């Protein structure tokens, strides 16, 4: 079939970048996404062929499937070994039901790097694209039928191919038979790889809008958004299935938004003040709410502090409550435009007047890029809720009220379930247990989420799901489950 790249663990951009290095950035290497779980690699050579790109062409056009999974350095393989024990890359043969699988440590030992020995016994860098090429060499020989039975001979064969790639890109060759490897800086040559284009800046690539708005990928707000994204995305199988369409859509529209921000300072400023900062505070508020035992004064004070910090920042930037109200209205309108009222609500496609046009502009950028905009409708709704509270705070010093908490809880429970998310009843018990322990710890929030999910669940297994909700204390057995 081809080469597939895992999307589930969220490291697909880095794996694709490694494959691009192997074909020397030939623009003929592309991907499509046939399922929510994987990217499928296609390759039509558009540059002059070299050994490594010919190898890629053979693999992509073979009938056998190879799955490449990017993981971090503490990933534990099926045999109990951490991936670091294999020098950051390892393969497993295919079976009747499973493809040939390659795991690659995209963090390169948590940023320390891996090294191997050269022919003089000095240690040299083992760059990630070289690791991927080494593992693909194992796969290639499996498919070719000359794969040795003996593990040492397999390594000698793959190191030979690895050295062909190393010679092609003019980096030191590895010792052909010394199977030594370790983490940390090498004794010779440093840890640079002759990239054919600027690599994606580590994990930052998918917070590019926030990074561009704040001015740095390392700003605390950006780090916090990145943390929240990783944490909730990797919470469980369902969390990944729910969040991936949203992130996939982000990858499609975000480069265009960044481009516009780079040419329009007013748009960039509006993104910072009315999108990035509110999202940062909204995450704080949502987490405080979900962690709290009850809607008590302590919780309301904590939430009020967060809203107050945002209002103070706006005040320092000279933003009036009236301007803020315009942004809040825009967010609420764009939420409707991307959500259920999609046909009825037409959005402003220009970014002419900020902040009034901000969310209309964003909605018009997001909508054409994919059908799974429901996640953004939900996000905009949350932002509108937050901005509305900030307006109340800014205008008449009104603090967080129980009504705001109710609205926040109801919004959180309406977690968007994309139509393409393949949530299965077989996974429901494990998944709902995780959601109850980690997200919907409050009985009220659990009940709201249960109703929300039941309303979207395939009719055939609704009784089973309802029974699970009862077992796991989401709903009382006799609870009315109409949303």
């Amino acid at each position, binding site marked *: 079939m081809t080469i597939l790249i895992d999307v*589930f*663990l969220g490291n697909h951009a880095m794996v694709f970048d490694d494959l691009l290095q192997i074909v020397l950035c030939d623009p003929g290497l592309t991907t499509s996404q046939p399922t929510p779980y994987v990217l499928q690699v296609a390759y039509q050579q558009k540059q002059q062929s070299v050994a490594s790109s010919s190898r890629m062409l053979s693999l992509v056009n073979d009938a056998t499937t190879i799955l490449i999974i990017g993981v*971090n*350095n*503490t*990933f*534990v*393989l*099926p*045999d*109990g*070994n*951490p991936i*670091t*024990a*294999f*020098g950051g*890359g*390892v*393969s*497993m*043969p295919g*079976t009747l*039901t*499973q493809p040939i699988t390659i795991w690659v440590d995209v*963090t390169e030992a*948590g*940023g*320390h790097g891996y090294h191997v020995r050269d022919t003089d016994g000095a240690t040299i860098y083992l760059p990630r694209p070289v690791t991927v090429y080494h*593992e693909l060499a*194992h796969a290639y020989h*499996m498919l070719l039928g000359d794969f040795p039975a003996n*593990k*040492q*001979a*397999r*390594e*000698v064969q*793959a*190191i030979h191919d690895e050295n062909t790639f190393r010679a092609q890109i003019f980096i030191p060759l590895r010792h052909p*038979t*010394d*199977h*030594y*490897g*370790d983490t940390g800086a090498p004794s010779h040559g440093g840890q640079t790889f002759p990239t054919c284009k600027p690599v994606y800046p*580590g*994990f930052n690539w998918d917070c590019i809008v926030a990074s561009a708005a704040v001015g740095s*990928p*390392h700003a605390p707000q950006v*780090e916090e958004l*990145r*943390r929240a*994204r*990783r*944490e909730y995305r*990797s*919470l469980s*199988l369902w969390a990944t299935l729910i969040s991936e369409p949203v992130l996939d859509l982000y990858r499609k529209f975000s480069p265009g938004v960044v481009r516009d921000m780079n040419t329009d300072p007013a748009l960039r400023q509006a993104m910072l003040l009315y999108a990035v900062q509110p999202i940062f505070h909204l995450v704080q508020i949502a987490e405080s709410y979900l962690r709290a035992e009850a809607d008590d004064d302590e919780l309301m004070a904590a939430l009020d502090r967060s809203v107050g910090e945002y209002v103070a920042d706006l005040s320092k930037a000279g933003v009036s409550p009236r301007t803020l109200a315009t942004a809040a209205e825009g967010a609420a309108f764009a939420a409707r435009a991307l959500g259920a009222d999609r046909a009825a609500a037409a959005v402003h496609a220009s970014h002419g007047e900020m902040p009034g046009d901000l969310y209309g502009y964003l909605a018009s950028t997001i909508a054409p890029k994919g059908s799974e905009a429901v996640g953004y409708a939900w996000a905009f709704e949350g932002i509108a809720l937050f901005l509305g509270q900030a307006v109340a705070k800014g205008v008449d010093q009104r603090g967080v009220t129980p009504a705001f908490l109710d609205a926040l809880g109801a919004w959180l429970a309406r977690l968007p379930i994309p139509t393409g998310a393949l949530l299965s009843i077989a996974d429901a018990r494990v998944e709902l247990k995780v959601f109850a322990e*980690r997200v919907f710890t409050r009985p009220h929030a659990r009940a709201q989420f249960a109703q929300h999910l039941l309303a979207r669940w395939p009719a055939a297994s609704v009784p089973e799901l309802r029974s699970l909700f009862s077992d796991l204390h989401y709903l009382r057995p006799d609870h009315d489950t109409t949303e």
Partner: protein
Amino acid sequence: MQESIEITDVRLTEMAVDQMTPVMAQSGVSWYRLTLTVRNRSHEPIHLMWDIRRIRYDAGRRVLVVQLSEHDAPNESPMVGLPMPPRYRVIGAREEATIVHPLSSPITFLETSADGARRPRYVRLAEDVNSIECTVAYETEPPPPVIDLTARKVPDQWRGRGTTVTASWKASPSRKERKKTSE
């Protein structure tokens, strides 16, 4: 019989951002530092396996088993390649050494169901782990200096090598102070 080495302390501490590499800091996951203090009680130098070679999570006991040893390695690995040889460090007679390894939270394990399907399992140190059981292998003979792939016999694991000692870290109720509590 008294072992030649003793793990005198096991600690787990959350890493601050300035203690991380940029890649770790940007990864979005939490990072902890697992620190083992090992004392050589014998009168001769010993060679201590320095790398984490196996990690297992016992969900029933909520225990993370971290092994700087391959004594529990399976006979056959389904993996294509050979693992790299583990690092060793020498600890002089009557001397002490500190081994530090970063652990991410969550740690991602790959579970395989009876029908062969694989899915990731995320284990979070703060929420899912009550105790970390650490095992270290040591020996008095030095390990082979070079793994020559043309040699007639190349070890693909270090299963039989060395003697092991074990100690545990247990989460305190507050989970703020994390120290060794049992051996």
